[in-house]
């Protein structure tokens, strides 16, 4: 599927891109969480990780359905998720980073994302786009729980044993370079902000940063220096992992294009 965007107005195009960014973040992070299934460190955590995965999947479905309507090319949620190529995916790089069978990586990735996602969904409650505001009204409750869950684990692991402290600090140092992309402004984001549809990305930074500081302090972890930040995912420039995610995720839909499931 190549997005057939010829008939959209520039406003619709920007909204469509914006929705894909939101939806793809949820799809890809949900996929990474799903990879833990049956392999979490403790049964309660299998349940909790699936819970977060399910919430994100639900958010993705609402957003993608709406995106398909905005696009107006007859693509439903599955068409957008299962038939779109990697360079049309708009998720931030953070969420596609692999689990490495390392719970510390999963938790740090989740925490950096949740702290941002919470601010984003809270801001979207005020969206001038009624549909997005309605989605946010449901999402914000879920995301509140996600952030609590990942924050608690940051604290447990950071202020646990010296091994766990070392592992979570290492994961934090490693993934920090993907945090900058969350706050990048570009034409799409500016247009959404101007129209009152979404918050300006930079407007979320102060609250995010405060959450991070507060949790890291309680977790006795050091906040990494802001070095060079990786970016590109939101414009379709991904790392090498996404292709493998999609090969797996999309296989059945690609192999049996005429089937309904």
């Amino acid at each position, binding site marked *: 599927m190549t997005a057939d965007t010829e008939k959209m107005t520039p406003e619709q195009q920007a909204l469509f891109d914006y929705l894909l960014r939101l939806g793809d973040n949820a799809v890809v992070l949900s*996929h990474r969480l*799903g*990879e833990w*299934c*049956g*392999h*979490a*460190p*403790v*049964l*309660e*955590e*299998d*349940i909790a990780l*699936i*819970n977060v*995965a*399910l919430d994100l*999947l*639900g958010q*993705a*479905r609402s957003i*993608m359905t709406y995106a398909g309507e905005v696009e107006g090319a007859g693509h439903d*949620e*599955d068409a957008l*998720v*299962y038939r779109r190529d990697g360079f049309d995916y708009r998720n931030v790089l953070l969420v596609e980073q692999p689990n490495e*069978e*390392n*719970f510390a990586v999963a938790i740090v990735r989740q925490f950096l994302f949740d702290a941002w996602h919470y601010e984003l969904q809270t801001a979207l409650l005020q969206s001038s786009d009624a549909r997005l505001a309605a989605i946010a009204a449901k999402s914000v409750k879920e995301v509140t729980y996600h952030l609590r869950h990942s924050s608690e684990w940051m*604290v*447990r*692991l950071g*202020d*646990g*044993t010296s*091994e*766990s402290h070392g*592992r979570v600090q290492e994961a934090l140092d490693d993934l920090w370079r993907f945090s900058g992309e969350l706050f990048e402004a570009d034409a799409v984001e500016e247009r959404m902000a101007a129209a009152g549809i979404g918050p300006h990305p930079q407007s979320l930074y102060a609250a995010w940063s405060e959450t991070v500081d507060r949790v890291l302090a309680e977790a006795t972890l050091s906040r990494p220096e802001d070095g060079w930040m990786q970016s590109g995912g939101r414009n379709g420039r991904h790392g090498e992992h996404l292709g493998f*995610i999609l090969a*797996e*995720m999309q*296989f*059945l*839909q690609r192999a*049996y294009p*005429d*089937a*309904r*499931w």
Partner: protein
Amino acid sequence: SELERRFQAKIDADEKIEPKDWMPEGYRKTLVRQISQHAHSEVVGMLPEGNWITRAPSLRRKAALLAKIQDEAGHGLYLYSACETLNVSRQELVDQLLEGKAKYSSIFNYPSTTWADIGAIGWLVDGAAIMNQVPLQRCSYGPYSRAMIRICKEESFHQRQGYEIMLTLARGTAAQKRMAQDALNRWWWPSLMMFGPNDKDSPHSAQSMRWKIKRVSNDELRQKFVDVTVPQADFLGLTMPDPALRWNAGSGHYDFGEIDWEEFKQVLQGNGPCNRERMRDRNRAHERGRWVREAALAHAEKRRARAAAQTTAVAAE
């Protein structure tokens, strides 16, 4: 003894035994074995289904599958809790599983190789499980009986979902129908084996029946499952992989072919297609999660110590 007599009288009167009640050691042991096997089965059963989460063919199906597996993890938790009321810790039970000393349902030693297997597992495996579990809602041990009531309700939802996946495939393209038939071929016999040996080869059953831990015999349950499932397969337009299967108007039941008990034995002995993979996966998850569990314990301990220190400080003021 008098205790035993009163215990059995209570059971005979269909009253529930509760954790603080006196019970014979044999009753306790049998229950621990049975409930923990059931708990382990829920946990190991997450693996063949989890295998398809990342490849589920639509978002709706993916969500349903995630939710189902989440339920199974939840069932594992209730059942471990029910077991803990019998004075055995979850840690001991999990260790028994990981060391290969405890059993889990042998059906989970078969691989899930196509999406249709997710349908077949729901339809047949959950279907057989419900058949086994419905009578256990009336089990004499209170905590187990109550866990079963909750579990059965969720399982029958899963079973309907599985059947609906099969129906979609069976009504789908030729490739989908072939996938569905293939899954039925592979899962049918193992699901019949889920009811255990024939009654004549199942020596433990009599005592369990008296204790009302087991309430219906293996062969009766199996027959009931066959009777319920064959018409469902017909409705799907799929063929049962058993040439001996036919309706017996005289008995009012379906006759069916002989189960390959050698295969059953081999799977129980660890030689099923996936026994090693399942145990390897569980052991790896356990090993890789060790530092996390240790951290959680250490942190909880630190909090307790800090809270205690604070209390002392406040008291001293």
